[in-house]
């Protein structure tokens, strides 16, 4: 029996938690109580059908993105396709943007026609932001590592184009082709940040006996990565190897930033971090 979507107010009495299947959203709206209550209600209404919409066209969402526009029908699915399209020269499927696109979609429903100071939707670390003029939001930066740890923060001002933050890495919920512990990206939308973080994390890579990989389908039979080798374990790497792997990822991030696809990125591997240094501040 399929469990229906559920919602709860978190113990702090402010934030909301929406959950359906693999989607976990934490939402918060700042403003007058009448406005925030309506915002939460609108967000919930939108959220209720999101997973069913996506599940209906999963096969197409798991197919590689090519130059031709993918045949996707739902609004969230189309947003995923749009976010991935600029990256079609690499292997990528719309699923690379799923978490961010869901966050964007629910945020849009939550903030549309509302008088809010600011709001966010955090979908398991992929975050969509709304900021009114003069508002800003500071978010902690968590490096996934062997155990997640707080490693820095990003302060996003309304004047900045950033409205999406996403984190990816082989230790996260999704499988990765690369060895980055964690790549955090700031971009215009959460969907764009999501796919960019995925691809930069893939690019933090090298062949080394310390890296163990397995075909994705041996781990998750339905993975969009199919028979591609995904990272399952990374033992301690020599400092020059860490440097090389991070340099490859950083180069990828620089190209994306030049193309205007991302604003900032922070890459972490075995205690070392590299970044474009635009917005993110490391606490390490």
């Amino acid at each position: 029996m399929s469990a229906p979507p559920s919602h709860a107010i978190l113990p702090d009495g402010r934030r909301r938690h929406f959950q359906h299947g693999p989607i976990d959203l934490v939402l918060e709206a700042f403003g007058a109580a009448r406005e925030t209550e309506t915002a939460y209600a609108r967000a919930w209404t939108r959220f209720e059908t999101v997973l069913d919409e996506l599940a209906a066209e999963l096969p197409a969402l798991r197919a590689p993105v090519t130059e031709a526009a993918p045949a996707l029908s739902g609004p969230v699915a189309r947003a995923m396709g749009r976010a991935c399209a600029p990256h079609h020269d690499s292997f990528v499927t719309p699923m690379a943007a799923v978490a961010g696109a869901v966050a964007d979609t629910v945020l849009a429903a939550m903030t549309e026609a509302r008088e809010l100071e600011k709001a966010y939707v955090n979908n398991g670390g992929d975050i969509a932001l709304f900021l009114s003029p003069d508002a800003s939001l500071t978010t902690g930066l968590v490096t996934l590592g062997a155990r997640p740890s707080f490693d820095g923060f990003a302060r996003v001002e309304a004047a900045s184009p950033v409205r999406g933050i996403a984190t990816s890495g082989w230790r996260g919920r999704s499988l990765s082709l690369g060895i980055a512990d964690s790549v955090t990206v700031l971009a215009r939308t959460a969907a764009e940040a999501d796919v960019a973080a995925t691809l930069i994390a893939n690019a933090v890579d090298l062949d080394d006996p310390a890296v163990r990989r397995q075909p994705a389908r041996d781990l998750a039979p339905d993975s969009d990565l199919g028979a591609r080798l995904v990272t399952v374990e990374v033992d301690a790497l020599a400092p020059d190897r860490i440097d090389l792997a991070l340099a490859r990822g950083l180069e990828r991030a620089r190209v994306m930033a030049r193309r205007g696809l991302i604003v900032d990125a922070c890459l972490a591997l075995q205690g070392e971090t590299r970044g474009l240094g635009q917005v993110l501040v490391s606490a390490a």
Partner: protein
Amino acid sequence: MPDDSAQAAPNPATDIITCDACPVLCRIRAGRTGACDRYGNLDGVLTRMDPFVVTQKVAERDGELVPFGEQVWDGSLISGAPTFVTGIGSGTTYPDYKPAPFIVASEHDGIDMVTVVSEAIFSYCGLKVKIDTDRFVGPETAAVRVAGEQVGHVTTAEYGSQMLSVGGVRHLTGGSKREGTVTCDTMLALSNREAIEMTIDGGAELTVQAGKPPVIGGKLEERMRVGCGSATIGIFAKQWHGEADEVIVVDDHITGVLSEHQAGRFLDMKPAGLRVRGRRSTPGRYFQVAEPGTGWGGTDVTDPLTIIDKIDPKKAWPGLRLLMVSTTGEDAAFFVLDDDLEPQPAEMPDKLQVVVERIGENCEPALSTVIFMAGAGGSLRAGVTENPVRLTRSVRQALTRVTCGGAPVYVWPGGGITLMVDVTTMPEGSFGYVPTPAIVAPIEFTLRLDDYGKIGGHLNAVRKVEEIAGIERLKTVRWHARTDWPGAPLKTDRESAE
């Protein structure tokens, strides 16, 4: 709906099951979880990975205990059986967000009881690890390291055991980030009964796992010594008498020499004239015959003859039969003195071999044991009562029982609620962590409903145990029969005053 609502369709051709907990319909391989991380394939069974654990008393039928394992039992609550709600899974924040604490009312033996359950975040906590061994693991106060980071230190040696202190706030948050992370990992693994490899500065490499024999310097420690060398002489002197002219029991603490020892003199044994190295304490008892190590009896000795300093030609005689044995019976050798009074290896006589084996038989299995120790202070108590000091007093007066995952704890005298619990008496997987880093452990406070009102408890938040049964991710485990039933009624305030 006491357990999982989701059903799994097993696929016999492979090890894949299909989860239908949500529309994604993940196919999940054995030992893996679905996209949500909530449901996993455990041996072909779709399983909720973050269960909220309650413990139930074993059924009694015809005067006999009926273990759950023999019944076809689906893990659901058995109606009417005494049920104790643990803190495990009650308050972690990922992937579910659960209000903590739960305050649960139940009836035990006709008395209304309240249990406040919570998962507490402990920065101030540590492990006391007892390693049953006489081998040298390292000097007192030496650093205990995991993956190069200091996670604790060697503390006192006890009779037949070496104690380690692992964890503590200084390593968790007082050192480098990596030190904190490794310490948290180590504590979490040891608390959840996983094996950890550690090294001790100036000492040994160890593998430690709660309830399992330690591995010291690559060698599995199977037995605790029967006693020190002197005690071993005292126990077995009569059984050796007539079969050997001298017995030397090699031990890092006190090495015993039979013919000099009180026990040998009592048997009118002739002094054999073998002088062992080290410092004589009393006749037949020697300290420091060798350096500590992982050889015979916790010394660094691999050739036992090296501890013999000299042989007195006026006392010793050709043909003298010498047995050398360690305090666990694991190492033993038999020698006969030749015409030049040099010890020559010889085959162990059967009658001596029997006694050597008996030493081993009298040694208890060597184990590593792990005690979790933490202070339940500050805001944790506010979840129980509006007046936290009254909870502390109530625990002091034994009106409130403190348990961890239903397991009994020892509460230290003095201020605060500082507790110790044997991790092997708690349900599996009881411990978690937060990135701070700190350890998350279940804790329950159980008291009578009327007493709960008196200490300023949150009476309006009390839920009936039957309501808990409706939680989707509920997991029922059999109550640990080694320990007292955690929900048993306590004495009343009035009784305690008398």
